[in-house]
């Protein structure tokens, strides 16, 4: 399962960021696929991105004149969420893959969560409300609408968008200033923290994870627990990278469906996919 997940993550990241011309020339893809959103946090200003970011799309629609319901962004979020829930985070998100790989670097004693996890895990909901929704409407721009999450916080935009573009495009590089270094600092902080703590951005800050978490309880893809066969050995709890209890696995908004519990169960009483 571990190897399968890594393969899916790598393939999905390569396919959805496969516009090589953009990387070579410091430009971005401008084709019709960008009418649609990818499921994960994938900056549409990444030179390789072939589709739009759902959080970027949500903010772009909220930034329009007047207050409009962002139907297209909500439509993609409902579709991906209803089918997959946070399976998107565990298997399809490029920034999740980056954090997974960083956590494999064997230099610190690994931790599943930060201290004050019970409080900090609500940070992603605060980011969703304050930066994506309220921030996009008026807060940070002094009543001028700005995509506040993308502008002030998103490390995925810095890693997949800013660094390759600034590397290949001299004109853009000459314009980088304080805001770029602020975002670079956030990215470096998350990169360093990811080596020690499992997916800190996903657990504490990602607004997309907050949205998909709401769908976890009823999404099509589930991890099912056959209670009758369970011997309560708690191997699944020890294997869970986000420190969920057996009862919380799958239905908790924090479960990213990584499948480590399924692999760890000696009785094979945890299964992927929903049974009829």
């Amino acid at each position, binding site marked *: 399962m571990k190897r399968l997940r890594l393969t899916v993550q790598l393939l999905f990241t390569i396919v959805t960021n496969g516009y090589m011309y953009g990387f070579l020339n410091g430009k971005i893809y401008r084709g019709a696929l960008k009418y649609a959103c990818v499921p994960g946090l994938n900056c549409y200003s990444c030179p390789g991105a072939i589709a739009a970011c759902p959080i970027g799309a949500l903010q772009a629609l909220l930034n329009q004149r007047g207050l409009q319901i962002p139907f297209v962004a909500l439509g993609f979020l409902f579709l991906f969420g209803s089918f997959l829930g946070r399976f998107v985070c565990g298997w399809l998100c490029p920034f999740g893959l980056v954090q997974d790989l960083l956590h494999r670097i064997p230099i610190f004693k690994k931790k599943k969560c930060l201290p004050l996890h019970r409080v900090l895990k609500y940070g992603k909901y605060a980011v969703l409300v304050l930066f994506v929704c309220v921030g996009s409407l008026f807060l940070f721009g002094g009543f001028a609408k700005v*995509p506040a999450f993308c502008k002030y916080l998103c490390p995925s935009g810095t890693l997949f968008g800013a660094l390759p573009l600034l590397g290949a495009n001299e004109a*853009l590089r000459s314009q980088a200033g304080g805001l770029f270094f602020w975002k670079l600092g956030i990215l470096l902080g998350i990169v360093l923290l990811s080596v020690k703590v499992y997916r800190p951005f996903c657990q504490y800050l990602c607004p997309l994870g907050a949205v998909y978490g709401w769908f976890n309880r009823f999404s099509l893809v589930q991890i099912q627990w056959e209670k009758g066969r369970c011997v309560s050995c708690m191997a699944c709890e020890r294997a869970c990278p986000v420190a969920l209890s057996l009862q919380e696995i799958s239905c908790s908004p924090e479960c990213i469906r990584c499948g480590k519990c399924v692999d760890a169960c000696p009785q094979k009483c945890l299964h992927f996919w929903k049974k009829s």
Partner: protein
Amino acid sequence: MGFWKLSKRHAWMLGALAGIVSLVIGVFQGQFAVVWKKAVMICLECIGIG
């Protein structure tokens, strides 16, 4: 099987249906074009310049 139990089992279908309906409304409101216009221009805010 009770209505609520059935609803819970099939809630993902209702969610997916809501998503499709939202996308259709978005088509009629021209929101796909807004997303496309934003996505095909280099977003200066996203890369820390704007």
